[in-house]
C-alpha cells in the first residue's frame, strides 16, 4: 500500500516545493511582506469577477456544445473536435490580434454591421475580457465535458434507449449527474487560468479598470523591484486558486458510472428535427466563433512566412524539444498525482505567478550555477508544472474510474504495480493520455517560457521570437512566425490527440 502511495507523495512534494520554494525565496530576499495599496484591492476585485464570469460562461456554453458533439456523427467531426482545441493553445498575443480582426473596431463583425447600417460594437471592456477568455477556454471546457460524455458507458445509453427516455429524462438521469461531477473541475481550472490573466485582460479590458493581480505582480517585480509586494500578491493569488480547487473538489464528488465493455454503440436519443437543428446550430456557431479568428490569423500570416529566416527555425526546434520533454515529464507527474486531492495540489502550478516563479528559481539557482545555462531545463520543468493542472483534470476522472472498476480485480490477481500501469492504467487512459499529451506539448510550444530572466540568446524559443519581431516593427514577419507557431502547436496537439483516440474508438 505504501509503495503505491509513494509516487503520489513524491509528485505532490515536487509541486509544493517548486511553487512554494520560489515564493519563499522571493520573500526571503525581500525581507518582509509588502503592503497592498488601494489599487491592489480594486485589482483583486476585478480579477475575481472576470475569472468567475469567464469560467462560468465558458463552462455553461460548453454544455450544449459538448452534448451536440457527443451525440452527432458527421463528416469532419474528428477534425472539428481537434481544431476546437486550437484557441486554447494559441499564444495570447496572437489570439488577441485574431479576436480583434473579428470583433475589433475595424473587424469583420463591425464591417458587416456597418454595411447593414447598424451601430457598431466595441470589444473593449469587461465583456471583451470575458469574450477573449471564453474564446481561449470554451474549447478546453468542451473537451473536458466531451470526455465526460465518452466516459458514460454505452451500456447506460442502451438502457436509456430501451426505457424510451425522453431527451430531458436522459439528461436528468445520465448526463446531469456526469456534469455535476465533471463541470466543477472544469470551472475551477478555467477560473484559475483566468486569475492569472494579464495581457489579455488589460488589452481587451480597455484600461486600468481591467487591472489584474498579475499586472500588479509584473509592476512590482519589473518596475518597482518591490519583491515583498510581489510575494504577497502571489500568495493571495495562490490562496484564491486553492480555494477554488477545494470548492470544486467538494462539488465534484460523487459516484462514477461503473465500467462498461468498451463498446461503441450508436445513440438512439435526440432523433427529432428540433434537437438536430439545435445541435447543428450550436456546433455551427461555436465553430464560427472559434475558428474565424484563427483563420484570419492564418491568412494574415501566410505572406509573413516568406520573411522568416534561419533563426526562427532554430527557435522552432528548441521549442519542439522543450515541448517533448515537458510532455513526458508532465504525464509522469500527472499519473502519479491523479487523485482528487492531487488535483488540488496540481492547481498550484498555474496559480503561481510565472514572474514570481521565475524570480524565485533565479534566486535559488544563482548561487549554485549560472541560471542561463539552465534555460532549457528550467523552461521544460516550468512548462510541465504549468500544464500539470490540465493534464490532471483530463486524466484524473478516468484514472480514478479505472482504479474503482478494476482495482479489486487487479488486487485479486496480485498484479505488480508495473503490470497495473502497463496493462491496465495506461491502456484504459489511452484517449485522455493522448489529449493531455497534445495539450501539454502545445501549451509548451506556445508558452513564452520562463520569463526573460532565463532568456538565453542562443536558445530562444518561438514565442520569444514572435515578441522580438513585434518589438522591432517586424509585424509581417511576426504574423508569419505566429502562424508557424500555430501550425506547430496545433500539429503537436493533433498528433498526440489523434494517437490517443485511434484504437481507443475501435
Amino acid at each position, binding site marked *: 500500500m505504501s509503495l503505491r502511495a509513494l509516487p503520489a507523495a513524491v509528485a505532490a512534494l515536487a509541486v509544493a516545493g517548486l511553487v512554494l520554494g520560489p515564493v519563499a525565496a522571493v520573500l526571503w530576499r525581500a525581507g518582509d511582506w509588502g503592503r497592498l495599496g488601494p489599487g491592489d484591492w480594486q485589482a483583486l476585485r476585478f480579477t475575481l469577477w472576470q475569472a468567475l464570469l469567464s469560467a462560468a460562461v465558458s463552462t455553461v456554453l460548453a454544455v450544449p456544445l459538448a452534448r451536440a458533439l457527443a451525440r452527432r456523427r458527421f463528416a469532419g467531426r474528428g477534425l472539428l473536435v481537434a481544431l476546437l482545441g486550437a484557441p486554447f493553445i494559441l499564444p495570447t498575443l496572437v489570439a488577441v490580434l485574431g479576436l480583434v480582426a473579428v470583433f475589433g473596431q475595424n473587424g469583420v463583425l463591425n464591417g458587416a454591421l456597418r454595411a447593414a447600417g447598424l451601430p457598431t460594437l466595441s470589444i473593449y471592456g469587461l465583456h471583451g475580457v470575458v469574450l477573449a477568455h471564453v474564446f481561449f477556454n470554451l474549447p478546453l471546457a468542451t473537451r473536458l465535458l466531451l470526455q465526460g460524455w465518452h466516459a458514460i458507458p454505452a451500456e447506460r445509453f442502451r438502457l436509456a434507449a430501451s426505457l424510451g427516455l425522453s431527451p430531458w429524462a436522459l439528461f436528468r438521469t445520465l448526463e446531469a449527474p456526469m456534469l455535476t461531477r465533471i463541470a466543477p473541475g472544469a470551472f475551477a481550472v478555467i477560473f484559475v487560468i483566468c486569475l492569472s490573466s494579464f495581457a489579455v485582460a488589460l488589452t481587451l479590458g480597455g484600461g486600468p479598470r481591467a487591472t489584474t493581480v498579475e499586472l500588479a505582480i509584473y509592476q512590482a517585480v519589473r518596475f518597482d523591484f518591490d519583491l515583498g509586494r510581489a510575494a504577497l500578491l502571489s500568495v493571495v493569488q495562490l490562496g484564491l486558486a486553492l480555494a477554488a480547487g477545494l470548492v470544486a473538489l467538494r462539488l465534484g464528488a460523487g459516484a462514477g458510472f461503473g*465500467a462498461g465493455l468498451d463498446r461503441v454503440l450508436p445513440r438512439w436519443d435526440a432523433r427529432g428535427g428540433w434537437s438536430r437543428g439545435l445541435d447543428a446550430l450550436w456546433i455551427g456557431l461555436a465553430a464560427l466563433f472559434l475558428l474565424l479568428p484563427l483563420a484570419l490569423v492564418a491568412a494574415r500570416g501566410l505572406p509573413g512566412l516568406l520573411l522568416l529566416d534561419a533563426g526562427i527555425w532554430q527557435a522552432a526546434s528548441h521549442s519542439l524539444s522543450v515541448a517533448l520533454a515537458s510532455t513526458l515529464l508532465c504525464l509522469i507527474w500527472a499519473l502519479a498525482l491523479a487523485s482528487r486531492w492531487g488535483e488540488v495540489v496540481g492547481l498550484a502550478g498555474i496559480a503561481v505567478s510565472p514572474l514570481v516563479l521565475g524570480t524565485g528559481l533565479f534566486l535559488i539557482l544563482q548561487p549554485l550555477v549560472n541560471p542561463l545555462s539552465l534555460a532549457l531545463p528550467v523552461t521544460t520543468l516550468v512548462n510541465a508544472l504549468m500544464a500539470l493542472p490540465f493534464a490532471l483534470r483530463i486524466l484524473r476522472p478516468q484514472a480514478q474510474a479505472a482504479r474503482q472498476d478494476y482495482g479489486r480485480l487487479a*488486487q485479486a490477481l496480485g498484479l505488480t504495480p508495473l503490470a497495473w500501469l502497463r496493462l491496465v492504467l495506461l491502456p484504459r487512459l489511452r484517449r485522455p493520455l493522448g489529449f493531455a499529451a497534445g495539450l501539454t506539448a502545445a501549451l509548451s510550444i506556445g508558452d513564452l517560457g520562463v520569463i526573460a530572466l532565463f532568456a538565453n540568446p542562443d536558445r530562444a524559443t518561438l514565442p520569444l521570437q514572435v515578441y522580438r519581431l513585434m518589438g522591432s516593427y517586424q509585424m509581417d514577419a511576426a504574423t508569419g512566425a505566429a502562424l508557424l507557431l500555430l501550425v506547430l502547436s496545433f500539429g503537436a496537439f493533433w498528433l498526440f490527440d489523434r494517437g490517443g483516440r485511434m484504437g481507443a474508438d475501435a
Partner: protein
Amino acid sequence: MLTLEGLSFTEADFTLQADLALDPGARVAVVGPSGAGKSTLLDLIAGFRTPQAGRVLWQGQDITAAPPDRRPVALLFQENNLFPHLDLMRNLGLALRPDGRRLRGPERERVLAALARVGLEGMEARRPGALSGGQQSRAALARVLLQARPILALDEPFAALGPALKAQMLDLLREVAEDLGALVLLVSHDPEDARRFAQATVLVAEGRAHPPVATEALFADPPPALRAYLGTGSGTE
C-alpha cells in the same frame, strides 16, 4: 478448514459477525436478504475488507492480515471480472503472471487448456466485449481455474444470465471446483441456486453469518429470518 473466529466488522450502522468453519472441498451457498452482508462476508474472506475483531484462518494458519493476492482465495465479482481492453489470452495470462510479462510456451498451453475446459476453444484472441454474457462468465471461470486457489468465492456471478444458462454455468462451476478440489462459496439471491449447487448453506441475516447447515434441511424447515426472506424477496432481483 476455513475458520472465521469471532469475526466482527462494522461500518457506519452496518455490522456483521461471523463464527463458523467450512470444510475444504465443500460447496457452500451463502443466502440472505439484500443488504445483510453476503458480499461483505466474501470480502472479509478474500481480504478486501479488514475486520475490527476476530481472525480468519485457513488450515490453521492466520491470514487475517494477508493482502488479497496472498490469500488462498480466488474471487469472482458481480461484474468487471475481465479487463475489457485485453484479449482473453492476456486476461487469463495475468492469473499466471501478475507481473504482466509475456507468457512462456507452457503457460500459453495452460491458458488454452483452461479456455477449452470451459468451452471457449479458439476464442483466446477475442476481447470480452466480443463475447456473449454466458461466454464472459465462462472466461471468468477459466481465470479462476488458472488461479488454482483452494477457495473459490463467487459473488452472484451469474445473476445476469437466464435460467438455462445459469444452470449450465453452475454445473460448470461444480466441475471446475471438483477439478481444483476447492471449497466454493457461492453468494446467491436465488434459493434454487443453493438447492441445485450446494451441500451446505450459510444464512446471512440480522447482522450474523450463521454456521453452515445442510441445504435440504435448511429449506425444508427455514428459520424465521430465512422464512421472511423467502416470503418477500425470492425470485426477483
